[in-house]
């Protein structure tokens, strides 16, 4: 039986009728055609489907859409003008932090969380925080460098405005 859901996705009000077993990743991809959210392992391990749920990173593959009624969802598409994401995109490009791109949306959302939540993170901490996002191309070196470079740039300009989390 389908259930009604009303939620915010990337700042837009969305209403839909969903089967309870529909996960949030399939909902944003197949129903809203927001395909930046990638589906990898489908059991919460690989991190490709990571989105922001009420501002905090969450796995879209193991959160069911029916349970997101009244909540605020932000996918990578909804962060295109976010000042931290603008910097991270440039840094990922500069540091060769992606190759095939499958993990990249989840990596970017986790990277943004690291930058905003852990402004003093060193390389070791960045690596620990990235443990929940798997990349099979880069060996992580470029990803870690990209995040470190954004953290470093922000430390030298601490007043840069950012969206509240």
């Amino acid at each position, binding site marked *: *039986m389908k*259930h009604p859901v009303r939620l915010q996705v990337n700042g837009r009000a969305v209403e839909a009728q969903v*089967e*309870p*077993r529909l*996960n949030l990743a*399939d909902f944003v991809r197949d129903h809203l055609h927001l395909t930046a959210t990638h589906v990898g392992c*489908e*059991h*919460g391990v690989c*991190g490709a489907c*990571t989105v922001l*749920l009420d501002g*905090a*990173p*969450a*796995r879209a*593959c*193991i*959160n*069911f859409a*029916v*349970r997101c009624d009244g909540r605020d969802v932000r996918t990578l598409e909804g962060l295109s003008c976010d000042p931290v994401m603008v910097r991270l995109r440039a840094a990922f490009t500069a540091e060769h932090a992606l190759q095939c791109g499958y993990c990249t949306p989840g990596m970017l959302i*986790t990277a943004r*969380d690291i930058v905003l*939540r852990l402004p003093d993170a060193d390389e070791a901490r960045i690596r*620990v*925080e990235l*443990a*929940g*996002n798997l990349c099979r191309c880069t060996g992580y070196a470029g990803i870690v460098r990209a995040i470190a470079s954004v953290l470093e740039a922000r430390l030298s300009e601490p007043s840069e405005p950012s969206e509240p989390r």
Partner: protein
Amino acid sequence: MKPAPFDWLQARTVDEAVGALVAAEGDALVVAGSQSLGPMLNLRLVQPSLLVDIRGIEGLLAVDEADDGAAGPAITYGSLVTHAAIEDGRVADGTNGLMPQVARGIAYRAIRTCGTIGGSVCHADPAGDWGTALTLLSATALIEGPAGRRAVPIEGFFLGPFGTVLAPGDLLVGLRVPRLPPGTRWAYEKCCRKPGEFAESIVGMLRNEAQGTCRIVVGANGGAPVVIDDRGILRDGFDPVRARAALASAGLDGDPYLLKLHLAMMQRAALEVSTQVPGGRR
């Protein structure tokens, strides 16, 4: 994979959840954070006909800091408190930083923002952190069910891997965690192949020299957390012969590799409680 079809009920009260669970006659599962149940549904390891969603039950998010019952000062956490809330210090901690450290080591941040302490305890994965940590802390599980409310010491709560005393219709509503007495040193050491991966061994330790008490719990052992009651293990820092004997008498010496892991975690924990400054850690 996608889950087998199921229906979903958003419960607004504990009574409504318990009623729905009873009516489903064992064919319903409770969902809180869905960070363990979600994967199990996706992998079709479980195929319930109904999910009873308890996230809309407001009281289950409460944290009662003023719990000074007959059993001494404690903090009671509603089942829906997330690992991230404990990690970030957004809820009270009476364990001098032990619970936030445990929370910080659970899976990944994107899991911790959704996963709940109550869900983790009910799931009873032997590698789960809260089972071991709350056994170490001598917590009490607060359960509501068809027969009313009851409190079960956590040491008797876990029956084995993924097994608990919860009967069909029972709902874990909260966890009462005694505050650690002043001067208690603690350690929580776990071994994972990779940060956030399921643990292969966990050893938790509490030591209070003024009271002459020591408590050791070995988790991630394939079954329920095991309490080892032998202060002699900490004689002169760490006595590996005595530690090995204690693990053997608890039946944890079946696999030589895992036995070595448990011993290594126990040695690290012993070092930690002997060098730690009481009242502050790291």
